């Protein structure tokens, strides 16, 4: 099976060549950071890995529309591609992986993948699935109340739509035309539970019931996701209200380093989706459009590799938080 093409063209979207290279670079960086984490996990150096692999296009395509530090992001644990796009670094992620004091997400308190950055307006993510949605609507409401044109992007897996919080937030966003974009990265599985046991009907199809647009996009096509998210963020900025985007994609790894996906899914299925790897697909587009060649690609790979290696080295050597720090910082202002 051949790699599928990219449907939208960047010219139509107002993207410069430099944008495309940035997007590609973020996707590649996310992938290489992720791969390195698995190696560290197998070496016994990292207790836990949770992956973005397969979802980089959805993440980078969506986040590329945000103005970091002004708009808000409520990501979920796979959104490494988003936080890198907004300005976090490979080093940040490895500091998190090793739970070091300097970890910008949590100072070593949370598992890796629980992103946070005050400067970048990445709101501290947690593990309970779906809790971010009502929070995102509140943040959007604050923008609306102050007459500011900020936008809130919030995301989750398809199972994050099964809990009540998602629905309560969709309804509230619809009632008040809030500037929020709901991105569901539907990667077909929730740990072992397949989509047909998780979702009745269609996720994108539900937006209509709340009176705002819902679009289904090919989540492995970075430009298609960018386009949908661009329309959604522009709509939000204009004060016209929320949009739901369902990006159809696939979780290429096991759920996490604690999971063995052979228990519940066939290798064939995984292979079919490997063929649709969003990075390979974007590379093909870039090559076809004369924006990437073998040499340039190697160069970029080398840069990324170096960044990753330096980050790992730094993070491994960094100190843990001390016991006093563990025991304090429970209340603000104290």
């Amino acid at each position, binding site marked *: 099976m051949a790699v599928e093409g990219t449907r939208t063209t960047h010219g139509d979207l107002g993207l410069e060549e430099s944008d495309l290279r940035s997007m590609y670079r973020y996707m590649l960086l996310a992938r290489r950071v992720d791969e390195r984490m698995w190696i560290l996990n197998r070496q016994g150096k990292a207790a836990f890995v949770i992956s973005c692999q397969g979802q980089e296009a959805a993440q980078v395509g969506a986040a590329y529309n945000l103005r970091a530090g002004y708009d808000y992001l409520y990501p979920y644990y796979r959104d490494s591609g988003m936080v890198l796009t907004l300005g976090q670094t490979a080093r940040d992620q490895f500091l998190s992986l090793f739970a070091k004091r300097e970890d910008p997400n949590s100072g070593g308190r949370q598992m890796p993948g629980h992103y946070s950055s005050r400067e970048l307006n990445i709101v501290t993510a*947690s593990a309970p699935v779906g809790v971010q949605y009502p*929070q995102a609507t509140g943040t959007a409401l*604050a923008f609306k109340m102050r007459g500011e044109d900020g936008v809130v992007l919030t995301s989750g897996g398809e199972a994050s739509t099964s809990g009540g919080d998602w629905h*309560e937030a969709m309804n509230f966003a619809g009632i008040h035309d809030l500037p929020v974009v709901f991105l569901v990265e539907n990667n077909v599985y929730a740990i072992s539970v397949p989509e047909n046991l998780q979702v009745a009907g269609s996720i994108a199809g539900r937006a209509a019931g709340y009176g705002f647009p819902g679009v289904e996009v090919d989540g492995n096509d970075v430009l298609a996701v960018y386009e949908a998210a661009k329309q959604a963020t522009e709509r939000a900025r204009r004060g016209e209200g929320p949009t739901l985007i369902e990006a159809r994609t696939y979780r290429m790894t096991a759920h996490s380093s604690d999971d063995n996906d052979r228990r519940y899914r066939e290798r064939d299925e995984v292979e079919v989706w490997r063929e649709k790897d969003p990075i390979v697909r974007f590379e093909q587009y870039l090559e076809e459009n004369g924006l990437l060649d073998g040499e340039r690609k190697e160069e970029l790979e080398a840069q990324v590799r170096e960044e990753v290696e330096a980050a790992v080295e730094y993070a491994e050597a960094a100190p843990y938080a001390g016991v006093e720090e563990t025991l304090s910082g429970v209340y603000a202002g104290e």
Partner: protein
Amino acid sequence: MATKNLLEAIHDGLAEEMRADESVMVLGEDVGRAGGVFRVTEGLQEEFGPLRVLDTPLAESLISGAAIGLSVNGMRPVAEIQFADFIPPAFDQIVSEAARFYYRSNGAWSCPLTIRVPYGAVPGGALYHSQSVEAYFCNTPGLKVVAPSFPADAKAMLKSAIRDPNPVLFFEHKKSYRLVKEEVPEEVPEVPLDEARVHREGTDLTVVSYGMVLHTVLEVAEKLREEQGIETEVVEPRTLYPLDRASILEAARKTGKFLVVSEANVTGSVSAEIAALVAREAFEWLDAPVTRLGAPDVPVAGFAKPMMDALVPDAAKIEDAMLELARY
């Protein structure tokens, strides 16, 4: 100085904070045009508009979650949960989220929000408009749980709660809304969120109490002094979590006899924590068993009037418990 009941005092505190700081806002069910089912927010929507006093859908998780999102984006939301009995759907957003933003982000994000929670037994409230649910929240680090019982304190502590950088649950006993009155100065002196209040000094026994039953405790204490010369020290925690341990222990050590009274189901109540604290830290001073009085472990309270009367500690039960200790 005017006489205000608890409801008016809370209303005033809220209105004043909203006038002083335009990031302060109110959200909840029926808080807007109707002014709240108890009328605490009456007139606020007229003054501050439909967004700053926002009628939300019937969705407590959304109310609390949106309050979090507002609070991280520059607002100081005061959410109302219509009845304490309906706070369980918001449990996750409160204990897993608001309480942890600060710690889990290593101090990067905080949630300066207040959640007002009318609680407690009222005639006719039945099983779902009567409960004292404060203990649910008094073992979650990162939360503050306050429960003032007097109007001036309530006004001052609501202001402190709104200004506090942490999530604060603000419990208001529904039965005291109109029943409990006192002189409240225009400018209430600040009351911090970590100080208990000693209502009367005494040497014979100490009673710690809050909510409607505190008022009964104070009456009984007066009666016992007049009739039997028993001098009771009465301490109101005001903040239930974290507790002002020092004040409670000081009173316990002073009298050597210690009773906690609340109207919550006694097992697993905040009274258990207070009793355990005293049992450990005032052991050498104790002349009698640390005692608790609360509702028996039965859903509070059946709709039929005799049912509520059978469950919530009344003056007679409180007097018995105090006398048992005084005579020990």
